[in-house]
């Protein structure tokens, strides 16, 4: 039996699953100390995850972002990478308990059947090379914004309703969490706008039209409208605090739960394999 990237992803998902279980324990106990154990478990999972990505890249001799398996693997790796960077700051170490469920959910999707289909050679040239990674970076930013928003809601809940615990909780200040969320959401919208813009150019070049009757395209536009409206609400109408955090969380849950279905329903993103 050969330990290929799929086996590595199974190992990574199992380790991430352990991190989720430990996170539940931390959530129940409160975040009163640095959860180094959880960070260690996640870093272990990230090691397997990176290996899976490297094996795939070595085998295909390209950046592995060209079908649903690769895209999901790469997006969750980006979230993991963001977590590693954030955990360098002591105030952000508790992020492990919040990021674990997101990475676990994404990694679990890579294990679904029939996600690793053949890659259309068209996707390996021209604007495609930029279209996919830019959109992936945008979703990575939205995922981290979601994590930051959940941290905000948790900390704000402690500060309002569990005041004694709030004093001992080691979470970043709610001001910093909100600022981080806004930065990630704004950055994500800019990247998604660029990525989708490139997508329309690609569509025009390949089919002669900027738009196509495709589930994934409509879904992407819906996601863009949602996030764009959220950013607009913040910058123009000063929507902040819990409302902003709940909207960010709701939008990302929508992305997470519908991404896979949108890909499967798409003709152009799922033929012969989707992204």
């Amino acid at each position, binding site marked *: 039996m050969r330990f290929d990237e799929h086996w590595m992803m199974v190992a990574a998902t199992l380790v991430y699953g352990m991190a989720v279980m430990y996170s539940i324990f931390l959530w129940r106990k409160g975040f009163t100390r640095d959860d180094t154990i959880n960070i260690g478990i996640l870093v272990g999972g990230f090691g397997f995850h990176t290996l899976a990505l490297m094996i795939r890249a070595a085998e295909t001799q390209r950046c592995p972002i060209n079908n649903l398996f690769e895209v999901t693997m790469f997006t969750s790796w980006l979230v993991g990478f963001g977590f590693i960077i954030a955990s360098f700051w002591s105030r952000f170490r508790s992020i492990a308990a919040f990021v674990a469920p997101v990475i676990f959910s994404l990694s679990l999707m890579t294990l679904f059947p029939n996600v690793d289909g053949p890659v259309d050679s068209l996707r390996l040239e021209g604007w495609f090379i930029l279209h996919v990674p830019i959109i992936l970076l945008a979703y990575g930013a939205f995922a981290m914004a979601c994590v930051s928003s959940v941290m905000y809601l948790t900390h704000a809940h402690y*500060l*309002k309703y569990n*005041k*004694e615990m709030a*004093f001992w909780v080691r979470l*970043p200040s709610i*001001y910093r969490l909100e600022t981080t969320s806004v930065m990630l959401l704004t950055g994500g919208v800019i990247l998604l706008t660029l990525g989708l813009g490139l997508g329309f150019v690609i569509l025009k070049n390949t089919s002669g039209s900027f738009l196509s009757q495709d589930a994934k395209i409509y879904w992407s536009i819906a996601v863009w409208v949602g996030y764009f409206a959220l950013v607009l609400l913040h910058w123009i109408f000063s*929507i*902040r*605090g819990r409302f902003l955090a709940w909207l960010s969380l709701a939008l990302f849950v929508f992305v997470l739960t519908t991404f896979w279905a949108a890909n499967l329903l798409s003709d152009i993103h799922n033929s012969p394999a989707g992204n």
Partner: protein
Amino acid sequence: MGIVAIGLSHHTCPVEVREKVAFSEGRLTEALESLSRDHGMTESVILSTCNRVEIYSFADQPVRKSHESIFDFIRRYHNLDPAHRQHFFFLEQQSTLEHLFKVASGLDSMVLGETEILGQIKKAYNHSLEGHFSGRILNRVFQNAFSVAKKIRTETSIQRGSVSVGSVAVDLAVKIFDDLKGRKVMVIGAGDTSEKTARALLSRGAHSIFVTNRSYERASKLASELDGIAIHFDEWEKNSPQVDIIVSSTSAPHYVIDRQRLEPMMSKRKGRPLLLVDIAVPRDIDPDCAMIDGVFCYNIDDLQAIADHSMKLRQKEVDKCDQIVKEKADEVLEQIQRGQLMMKQRQSSGQLNANAANFLPSSGKLES
């Protein structure tokens, strides 16, 4: 011969006695000179703070004699009645070291684990060092006291949390705003606790303070002390949209801030969070205010519960700290005693060499 300490503190006497025995900073050198010149102390450090007056000395004489000499010095210097002796503690060798290490670590302080005392000890020691009143023995003792304080700070939780209402309020503000730099504070009611809380917020970088009180005169007085702005009591609401923290401590029998009043204020703040600190009894702030998004409200009981919990956590650490203090005191005393023994040996061998040298010329003369 040995290290001794004589002193009194908030544990042994009331402030009426402490203030009589305090040494003013300007006359410290004179006092140290007197200890050295008139009372035979080889090395001395005088620690004089609002909570304690302690003299640490080393002299080449029996400890009992050192105790009497130092007490005699204090009695003469401050013109004290001999009856005041009952307020003093007299320590020698190991107990002196243990006491100093505890004081430096904040274990003997009124507020367990506080750090201000360490700075005061460093200042007292530097004064003696610069005047050459501290030498080989006390240098070693005080340097070790600083390292014990550091070890206790890093290896135990004796300084964890906040133990006063003001510092708890500041820590909670940091959890909301991250950095207090540039944050605006409003103090409603010019009471003592609100003043302390406002000072604690200012010390952490809060930008400007508005003070309001039913008596405008009192508001102006406190505002000038805090370098803030006094505003009339009926105008505080106009200024409130620009502030981030409101500290309220009026003696009003009803709520000063309620939900109906706060909601329009919050809509003008464009979603910026607001911290309400209510240290008044009866309460000034309607607890319903906390239901508004972005409003974080703490009353005196919330703050006191956190402070009490911190104190309990600190008290749990005392045994661990005592162990560190005892081990280090043993080690330092052993080093000092070994050093003194070696010095005596050197001195006696030096004496022998000197005798021999004295003898040689004469023997040389004899030879010639």
